[in-house]
C-alpha cells in the first residue's frame, strides 16, 4: 500500500515538472467528464422518514443528486427512477456531496449531504456543475457518487428578476418564488436574493400538512481583477407532517392512502409526527486569481440550527398507536374474536387513526396531585399518561475549505485542497404537549423490569429523581455528540492527444466523542460525562485514464481505493443512554473499478459504464424489542461486506431535428458478500446476551431497484418542449431483519411446522411501471424601453400517470420477531408509500 502512495507522489512531482513545458497540440474534448450548467432543475419529491434511522430525524431517501447533468442516464436515474427509490450504482447518499461556493455542506453525523440547509433553494443554484464519480473533479477529490457544486454567488447570476407560482399535489400544494439578482454592478458589487414559500394544508399524504420557506441572500464585492469576496446567507425553515410506514393489513382496512400518524381532534386532522428544521447558514468565500492562471478559493461557513420531530410518548397507558399489532384482526388467532375485530374495523374505519379524544380523556381521568418543589402554592392535579414529545437535535457546524488550482502546462491541471469541519449535536427531548394533563414524570418505563436490582434504575436523571416535567421542559436522554473532520487532498489530471489521465490522494482524519449531560439510573457510571474520543484516519487513492480512439469512441478506466470512518451512531451502541461502543471497531474499506465506453455520432450517442464496488468492514447497530429476551436489545453488526456491480447504459437517438429518443438501462447486482458478526446486548444492563453470526451472504441490498429501464421521447418545436417517459423498475428487495438469519432464530424450526425458507428467504416487491410527461412552453419578448428580455414560462410535470393511489416504494421486515413460534406474520413487514399520480404546474415570469 505504501509503495502505491510513494509512486503517486513521484507522479505528482513529475507533473509539476511537466507543467513548465508547453504543448500546442489540440485535443478533442473528453465527453466522459460531464460538466454542465443545468437549465431548470426540478425538485426531488422523495423525503421519507425511516423509522430505523438512529435518531428519527434524517430522511432516508434523499436523492443522491439535486440536479441532473446532461448525461441521459443520470437524468433519468435522478428523476424518473427516483419514484422507486433508485440509488445510482446502489450507493446511498453518503457517497455523494454538495458544495456551495466550494464549501462542503454535509453532516458528519449521517455522512450525507446536509439537505436541510439548502432545501427548496435549487432555483438559485443555476450555476451548478454535477460531476460524476472520481474523475476530473476540479472542486474536490470526488466521491463514487455525484459531486454537486453550486455557485450561489451573486456575481455569477445574470441581472434578472423572477416570480414563479407552482401548484402541485406533492409534499406541498403551492409554491411561491420571488427572486432577483443585479448581476455585476459597475462599482464591483453584486446582489442576489431569493424567497420562497411552500405550503399545503394537506399534501400528497393523508393528514400531512407542510409549511416551508426558503431564503437566500448573496452579496459579492469584486475588489479588483484578482479578488472577489462573497457572503451568502441561506436557510429553509420547514415544518412537515409525516407519513408513517404501513402494514399491508392496514391498507386493506383503511384504504390505500392510509397514514396512521393522524387522528381527528375537534373536527380537524391532527398529525402526531411533525418535523421542524431550520438550518440558517452563513458562508463567506473568496476567490483569488493568482499569476500564471493559478486559482485559490477559500470558503468558511457556519450553520446554527435545530432539527426536531414530535411523537407520542406514554407511560402507564395502552399503546396509543393506531396500527399497533394487537389492534389488528390478524393478531387474534381465535376465529370468532378475529371476526369481531374484522367487523369492528370495517364498521369504524376511524379506528385506524389516532384517538386524540381517548388520549385526552385518559389524562383527564388522572388524579395524582403533586406539589412542585420550591413552589408550595402550585398543586398539579393530573399526571399525563400520554404526551407529545419533541426530539431535538440542536446543531452547530463550522466548516472551512481551501482549494488551490494550478495549470500544469497546457495539458494538465493540479488541484489541492484542505478542509476542516467542526460539528456539535445536542440531542434531547422536551414535552411538546401534555394533552390536557398538568405534568409528566421523568421515568424510564422500559427500565422498570430491572427495578428489583436497584430502586433507582427507572430514573432518567438520578440527580433529580422522579422529576416533575412541565410543558416545554426537558426529559429523557440528554447528550452531545462532537465531531471533527480534517481532510487534505492533491490530484492532477492531464489531457493528451489520445489519453486523458488523472490521479489523486486524499487523507481524512475523523474524531468524535459523546458527552452525557444526565446520569441515568440504568448506567450511572457510563451515562454522564465525556466518553473516550475515537480517532480514525482514512487514506484514499484514485487514478484513471480515458483512451480517445477518435472523436467517436472513448474508453475509460477509473480506480479507487478508500477507507471511511464509521458513523457515530454505528459505533456507540446506545448513545441515548450510555457511552458504550461496539467490540470490533473498524474503518470501512472501499475498492472500486469502473470501465466506460462512449460512442458519439450525429445520429446517436451511446454510453455504457460497468462498475464493481466492494465495501468491506462496515458496521451497524439496531435497537428493538426482542420477544425472546422480553426486553429491548442492541444488535451490533460488524464485518458487513457488500459488492455492487452492474451496467449503466444510455442510447440517445436524434431521430429528427426536433425529435429524439432515449433508451436507458441499469442492470445491477448489489449484494452482501459476508456473514456478519453479531453481538447482542441488553439495552437495560448492557450485559452481552449472545454472540453469533448472521447468515446473509449473498442477500440483496434493499431499497434500490436492481434493474431499471426507461424510454424517453422528447419533442421540441420552437419554444415548446415535451418529454414523455416510461420507466420500468424491478428486482426491488425488501430490507431484511438480520435476527431472522441467525442460528438462534431458526433453532426451533425442528419442532414447529414452519419452513426454513419462510424465516430466512428475502422478500421482493413487485415490479413498477410509471409513465411521466414534462411539457413546457416559453414566451419571450423585449421591453421597448431598455431592450431587456422578458419571459413567461409554463412547465407542467406529470408523474406516475397510470397510478391513482400511492405505490409501495419500499419495505422492510420489522426487527421485532416472534422467536418462540416463528410466526413471521405476527410482526409483518411495513411498507413505505410512494407517490402515485402526481403533478406540478409552474408559471414563471422573468424580467
Amino acid at each position, binding site marked *: 500500500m505504501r509503495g502505491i502512495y510513494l509512486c503517486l507522489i513521484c507522479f505528482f512531482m513529475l507533473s509539476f515538472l511537466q507543467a513548465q513545458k508547453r504543448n500546442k497540440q489540440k485535443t478533442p474534448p473528453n465527453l466522459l467528464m460531464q460538466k454542465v450548467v443545468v437549465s431548470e432543475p426540478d425538485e426531488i419529491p422523495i423525503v421519507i422518514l425511516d423509522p430505523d434511522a438512529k435518531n428519527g430525524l434524517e430522511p432516508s431517501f434523499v436523492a443522491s443528486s439535486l440536479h441532473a447533468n446532461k448525461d441521459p442516464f443520470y437524468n433519468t436515474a435522478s428523476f424518473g427512477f427516483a419514484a422507486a427509490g433508485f440509488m445510482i450504482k446502489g450507493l446511498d447518499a453518503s457517497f455523494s456531496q454538495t458544495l456551495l461556493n466550494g464549501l462542503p455542506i454535509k453532516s458528519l453525523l449521517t455522512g450525507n449531504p446536509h439537505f436541510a440547509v439548502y432545501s427548496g433553494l435549487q432555483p438559485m443554484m443555476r450555476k451548478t456543475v454535477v460531476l460524476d464519480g472520481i474523475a476530473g473533479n476540479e472542486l474536490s477529490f470526488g466521491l463514487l457518487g455525484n459531486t454537486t457544486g453550486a455557485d450561489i454567488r451573486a456575481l455569477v447570476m445574470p*441581472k434578472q*428578476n423572477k416570480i414563479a407560482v407552482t401548484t402541485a399535489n406533492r409534499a406541498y400544494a403551492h409554491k411561491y418564488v*420571488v427572486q*432577483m439578482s*443585479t*448581476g455585476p*454592478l*459597475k*462599482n464591483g458589487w453584486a*446582489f442576489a*436574493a431569493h*424567497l420562497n*414559500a411552500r405550503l399545503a394544508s394537506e399534501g400528497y399524504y393523508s393528514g400531512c400538512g407542510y*409549511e416551508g*420557506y426558503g*431564503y437566500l441572500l448573496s452579496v459579492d464585492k469584486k475588489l479588483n481583477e484578482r479578488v472577489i469576496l462573497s457572503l451568502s446567507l441561506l436557510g429553509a425553515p420547514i*415544518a412537515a407532517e409525516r407519513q408513517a410506514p404501513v402494514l399491508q393489513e392496514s391498507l386493506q382496512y383503511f384504504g390505500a392512502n392510509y397514514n396512521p400518524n393522524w387522528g381527528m*381532534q*375537534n373536527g380537524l386532522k*391532527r398529525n402526531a409526527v411533525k418535523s421542524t428544521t431550520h438550518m440558517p447558514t452563513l458562508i463567506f468565500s473568496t476567490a483569488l486569481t493568482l499569476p500564471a492562471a493559478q486559482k485559490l478559493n477559500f470558503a468558511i461557513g457556519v450553520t446554527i440550527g435545530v432539527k426536531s420531530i414530535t411523537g407520542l410518548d406514554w407511560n*402507564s*397507558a*395502552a*399503546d396509543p398507536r393506531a396500527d399497533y399489532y*394487537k*389492534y389488528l384482526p390478524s393478531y*387474534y*388467532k*381465535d376465529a*370468532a*374474536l378475529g371476526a*369481531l*375485530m374484522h367487523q*369492528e*374495523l370495517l364498521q369504524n374505519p376511524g*379506528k385506524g387513526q389516532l384517538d*386524540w*379524544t*381517548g388520549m*385526552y*380523556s*385518559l389524562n*383527564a*381521568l*388522572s*388524579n395524582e396531585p403533586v406539589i412542585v418543589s420550591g413552589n408550595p402554592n402550585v398543586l398539579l392535579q393530573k399526571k399525563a*399518561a400520554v404526551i407529545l414529545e419533541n426530539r431535538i437535535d440542536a446543531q452547530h457546524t463550522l466548516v472551512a475549505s481551501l482549494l488551490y488550482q494550478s495549470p500544469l502546462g497546457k495539458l494538465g491541471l493540479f488541484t489541492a485542497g484542505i478542509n476542516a469541519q467542526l460539528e456539535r449535536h445536542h440531542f434531547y427531548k422536551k414535552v411538546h*404537549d401534555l*394533552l*390536557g394533563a398538568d405534568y409528566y414524570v421523568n421515568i424510564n418505563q422500559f427500565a422498570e423490569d430491572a427495578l*428489583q436490582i436497584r430502586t433507582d434504575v427507572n430514573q432518567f436523571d438520578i440527580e433529580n429523581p422522579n422529576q416533575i416535567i412541565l410543558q416545554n421542559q426537558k426529559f429523557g436522554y440528554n447528550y452531545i455528540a462532537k465531531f471533527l473532520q480534517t481532510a487534505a487532498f492533491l490530484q492532477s489530471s492531464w489531457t493528451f492527444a489520445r489519453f486523458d489521465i488523472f490521479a489523486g490522494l486524499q487523507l481524512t482524519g475523523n474524531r468524535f466523542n459523546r458527552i452525557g449531560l444526565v446520569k441515568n439510573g440504568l448506567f450511572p457510571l457510563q451515562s454522564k460525562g465525556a466518553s473516550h474520543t475515537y480517532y480514525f484516519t482514512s487514506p484514499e487513492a484514485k487514478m484513471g485514464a480515458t483512451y480517445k480512439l477518435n472523436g467517436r469512441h472513448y474508453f475509460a478506466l477509473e480506480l479507487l481505493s478508500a477507507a471511511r470512518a464509521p458513523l457515530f451512531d454505528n459505533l456507540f451502541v446506545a448513545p441515548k443512554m450510555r457511552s458504550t461502543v461496539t467490540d470490533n471497531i473498524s474503518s470501512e474499506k472501499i475498492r472500486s473499478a469502473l470501465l466506460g465506453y462512449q460512442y458519439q455520432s450525429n445520429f446517436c450517442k451511446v454510453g455504457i459504464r460497468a462498475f464493481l464496488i466492494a465495501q468491506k468492514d462496515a458496521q451497524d447497530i439496531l435497537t428493538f424489542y426482542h420477544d425472546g429476551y422480553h426486553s429491548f436489545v442492541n444488535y451490533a453488526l460488524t464485518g458487513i461486506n457488500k459488492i455492487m456491480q452492474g451496467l449503466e447504459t444510455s442510447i440517445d437517438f436524434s431521430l429528427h431535428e426536433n425529435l429524439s429518443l432515449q433508451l436507458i438501462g441499469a442492470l445491477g447486482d448489489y449484494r452482501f458478500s459476508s456473514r456478519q458478526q453479531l453481538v447482542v446486548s441488553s439495552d437495560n444492563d448492557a450485559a452481552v446476551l449472545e454472540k453469533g453470526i448472521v447468515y446473509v451472504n449473498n442477500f440483496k441490498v434493499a431499497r434500490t431497484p436492481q434493474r431499471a429501464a426507461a424510454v424517453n421521447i422528447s419533442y421540441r418545436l420552437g419554444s415548446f418542449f415535451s418529454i414523455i417517459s416510461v420507466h420500468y423498475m424491478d428486482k426491488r428487495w425488501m430490507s431484511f431483519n438480520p435476527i431472522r438469519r441467525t442460528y438462534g432464530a431458526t433453532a426451533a424450526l425442528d419442532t414447529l411446522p414452519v419452513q426454513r425458507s419462510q424465516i430466512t428467504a428475502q422478500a421482493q416487491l413487485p415490479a413498477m411501471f410509471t409513465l411521466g410527461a414534462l411539457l413546457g412552453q416559453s414566451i419571450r419578448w423585449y421591453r421597448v424601453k431598455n431592450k431587456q428580455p422578458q419571459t413567461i414560462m409554463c412547465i407542467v410535470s406529470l408523474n406516475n400517470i397510470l397510478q391513482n393511489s400511492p405505490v409501495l416504494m419500499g419495505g422492510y421486515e420489522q426487527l421485532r420477531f416472534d422467536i418462540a413460534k416463528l410466526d413471521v406474520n405476527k410482526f409483518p413487514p411495513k411498507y413505505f408509500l410512494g407517490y402515485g399520480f402526481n403533478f406540478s404546474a409552474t408559471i414563471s415570469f422573468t424580467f
Partner: protein
Amino acid sequence: MSMVSSSMSFKNVFIQWVCIFFLWGSFCNCEKVWDAPPMYTGPALKANMSIKDLLRLHIPNNYEKISADYIIEGTVTANDKTDNFYKSIIIQDATAAVTIKLDGYNLFSKYAVGQKLGIALGGLWLSDYAGMTQIGVGVDRSDPASPFLLGIPQPLMNRFISLLAGGKLMIPIPVLATGLVDSLKGCLVAIDQLEFVVSDTGKPYSDLVNQLPASHTLRTCAIGNLYLRTSGFASFGNALTPRGNGTATGIYTVFRTQKQLVIRDTSDLKLTGLRCSVTGPKTLFAEDFSTAITDSSFASAGYKNISEVGGKYFTAKKTSANLYLEISAFAARQNAVISWFILPPINLDHSANEILHFDTKDGFDNGAILQAMVSTNYDGGNSPARAKWTLLPAVIAKGSVSGFAPQWMFSNNLDLSKFKGNVYIAFRYEGNDPSAAIGKLTTSFRLDNIMVQGN
C-alpha cells in the same frame, strides 16, 4: 446611469420583497394551538339488570354467550395498578361483584378504583375460573382439553364499556372470617381480627425473582383457613408480611374450595395491633445483673464490654443488694473516653410489637452521655463503631450534679418492631477526662433492668 437605475430598481424590489416576506409571516401559523376535546365517556349506559342477576345466568364450568342487550353498572374495586390483578378489573354493585377480563395493560389509568362503569353485555361471554365468575369476549378452544375465556381486546373496550359519572370508592363490606359466604365472592370485604400465622410473618408477599405467586395463611385468633394470595408479578411482592393483628381489606376470592383474600396494595392490610396468639407480652430478653461479680468489669457469654478509647469499662457494682453496671470517665486521664456495652443478639423473627426498656441513674453529671442504640449489621466483634447503629429515643437520667440521683429513671418503652432478624442492642458511653480542670465530661451512669418484650 445604468448603475444608478439598477441599484434603484434593486432597492424598490427589495422593499417589495420585504413586504411580501412579512405578509408570509402573517399566515405562518407555525404551531396550531389545539383545543382539548371533551372527555370520552361512551354511550350513557343504564343498567337493566343487577350483577347478582347476571351471575345467576351462569352455570358453573360452562360458557354462555349473552345475546340479550343486558346492561350492568358497577364500581371498579380492583385493577392492574400493582399488577396483583392481571389483565382484569373487578366491578361491584349493591348486589354482587364480577371479574371482567380485559386483554390489555395499564388498565388502571382508564378504569381507576372508584370509577363507575356501564357494561353492555350483548355479545360477551360468561364463564368461571376455579369458582369465580368472569366476563369475556369469547372462548379459545384451540386446546379442547382446556378452553379458556378471552379478554376484551384494547380496541374493543370502548364498544362494551362506558365510563359513567358519579363513581366513588366502594366501602368494603365488614365481615368476619367465618362469615365469608359465596354471595360475597369477588366483593371488596374488610375482615377484622386477622393476623398471619407466625411462620408466614416477615415473608415476601410473593417471589418476584422467579415470578411465582405465593399464598400466606391468615387466621383469626382460632381459625386458619383463609389465604392471602399474591401474584408473582405484584409490584409489592418484595415487601414483607406484617406481624401484627388487625383489619384486612381486599377482594374475597375462591380457588375451587380454598378461600382467598387478594389485596390491591399493602395499605389494604392494617395489621398493627397486638397478636392474639399469646396472652400478654412475652419476654425475649432480660438482664438485671444479679449474677455479676461485684467491682469487676462485667463479662458474660454473648455480651461485649468494649473500650473503644480511654480504657474505661462497664463495671458491676452493688448498692443495698442490688447489682447494676456503672461507667464513668472519672480519673481516666484521657482526652476521650468511649465505651460500649452490647447485649447478646436478640432474634425478633418470631414476635411482634417488640419493645426495649431499661433503668438508668446518673451521678456527678457534667455532660458525658449514655446512648441506647440498635444494629442489625454489627458483626459481634471488637469494632462496633464500624456497624450501622440506630439511636433509640430513650430517656436517660441526667442532672444530678452532686452525688447520685435517688431514683432510677425508666427509659420508656422503645419500639423495636421495625427491626427483624438478629438485632444487637448497645449502650454507648462518651465522655473525657482531660488534664485541664475545665471541660471535663465525667458523668457516672448506672444501668439496670434491661428487658426486651414482644408478642
